[in-house]
């Protein structure tokens, strides 16, 4: 069975590395991008099965990414947002834009794995 592809958009290298490791160990084919530009370029070429994105990213924020995916690419792939705790407004905006789920920092990698699996199962 082919691995599900996952795009991880996170500018924090350490956290991204950690999540990358965990998600790979969880059986996903993870592609990591450190900024919005790279994400956009990647999405233009290939659409992953799921996107896990931080809201605050250089060049291209998580909000813009959702908007880009939903409105420009017209894709319905699940998007999970990682946001800082207490950033309620951003979370609400993200949901309004079409995010499927969110997880707040500090992130529990195990929890993220479960959420990813759940979103993929939904689809």
């Amino acid at each position, binding site marked *: 069975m082919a691995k599900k592809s996952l795009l991880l958009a996170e500018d924090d*290298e*350490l*956290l991204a590395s950690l999540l*990358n*490791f*965990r998600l790979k160990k969880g059986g996903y084919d993870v592609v990591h991008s450190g900024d919005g530009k790279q994400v956009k370029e990647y999405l233009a070429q290939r659409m992953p099965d799921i996107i896990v994105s931080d809201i605050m990213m250089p060049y291209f924020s998580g909000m813009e990414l959702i908007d880009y995916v939903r409105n420009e690419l017209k894709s319905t792939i699940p998007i999970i947002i990682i946001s800082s705790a207490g950033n309620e407004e951003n979370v609400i905006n993200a949901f309004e834009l079409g995010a499927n789920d969110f997880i707040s*920092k500090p*992130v529990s990698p*195990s929890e993220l794995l479960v959420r990813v699996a759940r979103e993929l199962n939904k689809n």
Partner: protein
Amino acid sequence: MLIRAIHTIFLFVTAPKIDTDSLWILTIVFISLAALYFVSVFIFRNNISYKSSKTKKRKMELSPMVSEFLFYEENADKEEKSNYIDLKIQIRELIKNDFNRKILTEVLLDLRKDVSGDTKQRLFKLYQDLGLDQDAYEKLKSWKWEVIAKGISHLTQMQVEPAYSFIIKFINDRRHTVRKQAEIAAVTLKPEGINYFLDTTRYKISEWQQLKLLDVLRNRENFEPPRFKYWLTSTNKHVVLFAIRLIKHYNQNDANAALIELVKHRNNQIKTEAIQCIQEFYVTDAIPMLKQVFPKCNVDIKVSILGTIGELGSDTDIAFLEKVADSEGNFAVKSKAFGAINMISPDTIMPTEGLDNKGIQPLLSNLPIEKPKELEPQETNEQNTEQVEDQEEVLSQEAIEAIKNRMSAKKMEDVSSEDHQTSSLTTENESSIGTSNEIKSPSNLEKEKEIKDNEMPIGQTESETTEENPIVVVEQQLEIAQEKPEEKEETDVSREPSKEEVPINDEHKEQSVIESEKYSFTTASLGSIELTEDYSDQPSSSIDLDFNFLPIVIQESNDLYHQNNSIMNDSHQPEKDIRQIEVAYEVIKVEDIPNPIENVDFDLDISDFQFLPIVIDSEEESQAIDNSEVENSPEEIEDLNFLPLVTDGSFEPTKEEQELELPSEEAKEPNLTTLEGYTLSDFEIDFEQSGKTPIESTEPVFELEEEPMAKVSIDADSSNADDVISWLMEQNELGQIEVEYEEINNSSSDDKSYSNLIPEPIYYDEHETYMMGLLDDLQELGDHREIPLLEELLEGETKTFIKDRISQLIASFSQHITENKKTKKEESAPLNLPNFSVFADLFKSIDTEAKLILLDEVVAVGDEKEIEFLDNLLEDPDPQIRKKAQTVLKTLVAKVSNKSDTKSFKKKVDDEVLTKELFDHQMAKENPSVTYTTEEYQEVISEIDGNEYFDEELFTIDFEVSEVLDKTYPKKILELPVEAVEITPNGASLMFQIYQFTKAFHR
């Protein structure tokens, strides 16, 4: 002098001579300095960027390693495990470098912020596993405060609990950064850290620090806060303050008494916090204390106290608040006092400032009121300035109040002549006439008086006012009142209006006065009272109202205030609490009250007590009940049928009851003859008491039974047993027995069978009697020794039945002999009793010398039974005995062992033969084709069991000896082989498999 000075000045003013050659030098110097600067900047910058990139690079190198460690699982596959081990070795090498250690620490600290849950816990563990906490411990030893603070911070962030004891030493460090870091660490690392911190800290706890500490406590999982009231007694006021805040935060409302005391604290912050806490916990007991401390407090605390009283207070506190409102000069305090009054009793104080009363103007124009002359210009220049407008509002409001009061007075005049009730009602009507809000608005007594005074110079005649407006009546009264000099004086006092004056509702004014119970009146109120008193003297009007629905309200005769004002004076205020109205009760003298006990006629019906059982104490009473109540009220008795009838035994049923219970005529006869209520046992007692032989008649019972049952007499005088039996049978088992008798009567053949059951009598002659008596005695007293006698008797006897008897006896005695033999055999068999040494008893009563001699005898005479005895002697207090016993024991053990050698040898030979047979049998059964030699067999046996198996000493020793040897040679005992045959799954014995194995090995 002056010239010289001027010259000197010129010297300075004049440009100095510069050597142009030196300019080049200077230029070169500056350029070189600049170059040096830029170079150094470049170098530093490069260095920094290099370090940064190096750090980043190293972080990226270490990050996957950290991830690998964090997400490693015990049940990982081999490849992962080997990777993990490699990483461990690798990282151990890496962290030998300080830089790498530092980077790794940074990585872990950074990740700590971003991860949660199990990963975070693993991160903490990894930090300690890698020994990175040692760096932090080292930092604690530094003399630099920033290094110490950093070390504490690292240990705190990575939750290194063992560091707690090292860190708490810094709680009272004089360097505040270190101190604060230590405080947070103490609270973070252990739950009891907060206790230690509050106990020991001697320094100030800043507000920010308190917030941080509180944040730490709040985010602590499973934290059970201690009772912070214990720190309310701390000598450190900051601790007290923090404790109060924590008490408030955790809602620990068990410290109310301490909080009340803290209201007296000199520190205003503590005082304020305590008051807030009191307010939050609703500590009403604190109100007296709050009132006490109020005068000494500053404005902020006063406001806080008033707010608290407003929250917690009751009507009794309004007087205090009014007093505060009157006496306090500070606007904030005064306002808060009014606010508190309104909190306790809503709408007592109404707003006066900034009201727009323009809508009232048309009403004013209709009234024949002349405004004060000094105010007229202001009114004409209205809307010029804001100030003028405000003044106008105040005036118009005063005018409204004047209208209201005049109307009120007019109504009062109309009605007061009738009675107080009607006057009150008029006031109520008045409220319906005017706009409700306006009427409810400030109209206290002072205002009334003030307005009345203002009204006075209007100068209208009575007739004019009477005709034009009903308010003229009020004016008349005001004039009357003004004529009194005392009143005028009072009026003058109250006429000075105060800008800050806030009106208080009459209702509340009254209420507070009533509550004070002193009826102390203000000058204004007194004037008002007198005025109203005047109104009450006026003739009654023709208003005819029915007030029957109203309660009769009276007041004390000396209560002027109530006489004149309070009677329904507040009826225009529907929110007035009716419970506060005094109600007159009709006074009834005690003499007038009839004695309730004497004259009460208990018209009771017995049917009302259906739930009670009827208890009859005596016959008379029962008869009385029967005659008086029961007979008179048969219906009631019928109603009581469900009740149990309790009697004391002497009660006899009434005729009616007898009739009910004994419908037959026989039953009506005196019941001595009847068995009603008797049992068999009762009958037997009577039978014994009769004093007659139970069965006098020699006739058998069955002869009686032959007679038909119908003929059996039931005569009471008959004490005959037959009669009794038949009587009993008839009475108790009448129907059933009759049926049986009928059957018996019908079957005459069965009678014989009954007669057969009775044994026939046997009659002996003299010899027979003697012999039978003798045999009886022999049977009873004799034993097997009587057999010869019995045999003799048997030979000489002719009677068959005697012979039989003798034979039986011989047989029985013979049986006894065999049984006795068996018993003897059993008794003679060796009993499995515990071993007992005869020497033990002897040893108790002899001296040491005799003991030594006796021990020698033990060797000669004794056997294994003495081993235990000797073993006990090894612990004898006498060393001589111990030594001798040891020697004797060794000898005895050797002796016992030699004895068993012969037995064991025999057994050994037998066993060998048996083993050989078994082996042959097994071999033949499993593999008949295989042959083996005796040497091979011996090899197998020796390999299986070893030589120890044949160690006769171990094998033959019995339990007692082994017990001793266990102590002497424990190893041997422990190595005792266990005999077992193991069957392999393929069916071949272990022995055979070993044989096969050894054979194969040899090949």
